[in-house]
């Protein structure tokens, strides 16, 4: 049984059929890139995995545990955080500095955990303080890993797009998700800033992170991925190792897509 199993995901927005049955499997430590023209369901697929959209049909299991559809009565329990998400527009919290952006979710998680224990009063405050200090250390390490040790106290408005996206990556790593998703992480960046973000993603691959990347950076996808998923019209048109997809695409749609992007490049 594969680590992540996505079975027959269907998603309609009213009359529009965005995903018409998407299935794939991936193992821990693998990196998949999802390619395809805009409007073919790439982003919607990621959003279904992250519960930002609720799929109409289908099943998702991670590590043998079914996370979608949720078991009865557990639907309201919030995101299980099996997946992390990095958005196209970063979506950092503007009122918090880089460090606070990363610690926020960790601190809330610590609060929930400590509230669930019977300890009260001074003891609870002491344990919270300890947890916050621990979270801050973790956040500092994460920010250092994305090369922002000098920008921890800066607010998002004081950072470049590339720096903001790197904070967003550190924030997504904070809860150590099993699978990290990227939704066109460099599409909102100036060309000279994409390199620093791609470098961080590559570094994460070398550390053995399981990642699904929706991107338009064909070259990057080729270099970083174990498998390429090519999507067209809401289904996986073709899927395979980069060299197979890029050099020997079987489907006509895939061939056309790469022929077009080659002309552009």
């Amino acid at each position, binding site marked *: 049984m594969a680590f992540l199993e996505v079975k027959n995901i269907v998603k309609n927005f009213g009359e529009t059929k965005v995903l018409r049955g998407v299935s794939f499997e991936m193992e821990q430590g693998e990196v998949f890139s999802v390619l395809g023209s805009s409007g073919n369901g790439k982003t919607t697929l990621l959003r279904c995995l992250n519960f930002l959209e609720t799929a109409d049909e289908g099943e998702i299991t991670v590590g043998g545990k079914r996370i979608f559809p949720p078991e009865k009565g557990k639907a309201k329990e919030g*995101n299980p955080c099996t997946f992390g998400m990095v958005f196209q527009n970063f979506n950092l*919290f503007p*009122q918090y500095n880089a460090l606070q952006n990363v610690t926020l979710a960790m601190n809330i998680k610590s609060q929930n955990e400590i509230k669930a224990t019977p300890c009260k009063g001074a003891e609870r405050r002491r344990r919270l303080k300890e947890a916050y200090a621990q979270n801050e250390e973790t956040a500092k390490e994460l920010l250092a890993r994305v090369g922002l040790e000098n920008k921890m106290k800066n607010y998002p408005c004081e950072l470049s797009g590339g720096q903001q996206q790197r904070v967003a990556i550190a924030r997504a790593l904070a809860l150590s998700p099993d699978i990290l998703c990227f939704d066109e992480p460099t599409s909102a960046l100036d060309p000279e800033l994409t390199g620093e973000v791609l470098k961080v993603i590559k570094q994460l691959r070398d550390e053995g992170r399981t990642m699904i990347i929706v991107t338009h950076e064909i070259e990057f996808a080729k270099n970083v991925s174990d498998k390429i998923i090519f999507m067209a019209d809401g289904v996986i048109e073709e899927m395979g190792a980069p060299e197979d997809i890029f050099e020997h695409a079987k489907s006509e749609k895939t061939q056309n897509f790469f022929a077009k992007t080659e002309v552009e490049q």
Partner: protein
Amino acid sequence: MEHFQEILMELCEGFGNTVLLFAVTLLCALPLGLLFAFGSMSKFKPLQWFMKVLIWVIRGTPLMLQILLVSFLPQYVFQVPTKQLASALNLSINATMFFFVAVAFVINYACYFSEIYRAGIETIPVGQYEAGKVLGLTKNQVFTKIVFMQVVRRILPPMSNEIITLVKDTSLAQILGVIDLLNAAKHAVNEYVILTPFLYAAIFYLIFNGLLTLLLGWVEKKLSYYKV
């Protein structure tokens, strides 16, 4: 400067009521307005419509009419004479009148505030909610930890406007005989047959609003440590 001291004492007493009405209205209408805003954005349609109609009626009619309506309601609709209500509430008649005025003010200002809140909440990009959600925050946590402070910052300028209007609206309390600042000035004008109490009252209002403007400006500056 005839009777200056007496006039000043009377005005100060009236000013006390003005400040009290201002503070009570602000303290109650700020949270109530947020509840109203949630109501008017609710997915539960009957609640949403009820709030929309309430806001339409309250904003569409004079505050003075609303004050009069509140004061007559117990007597005319529930057949409870004001005197009886006053003793039931353990209040003097004057305090009961003040209570009626405060109720009308709180509802009226909550409606105006709710529209400001709603505008603020609706300008927060959906990406902020989504980022919170994928980090495992519940809806309440997303609102309290991420959205609310951004809303406060955005709505502070229109809120300041409304708060300054509230200072001046308090003078409507005199319709039920509450001795607010302006009413006290009017009494002094009649009593001493001079116009200066009006001037003094104006100075009171100006200083109060001046201080408020400084305070709100300071808060606004404190909150603009980041750009959106």
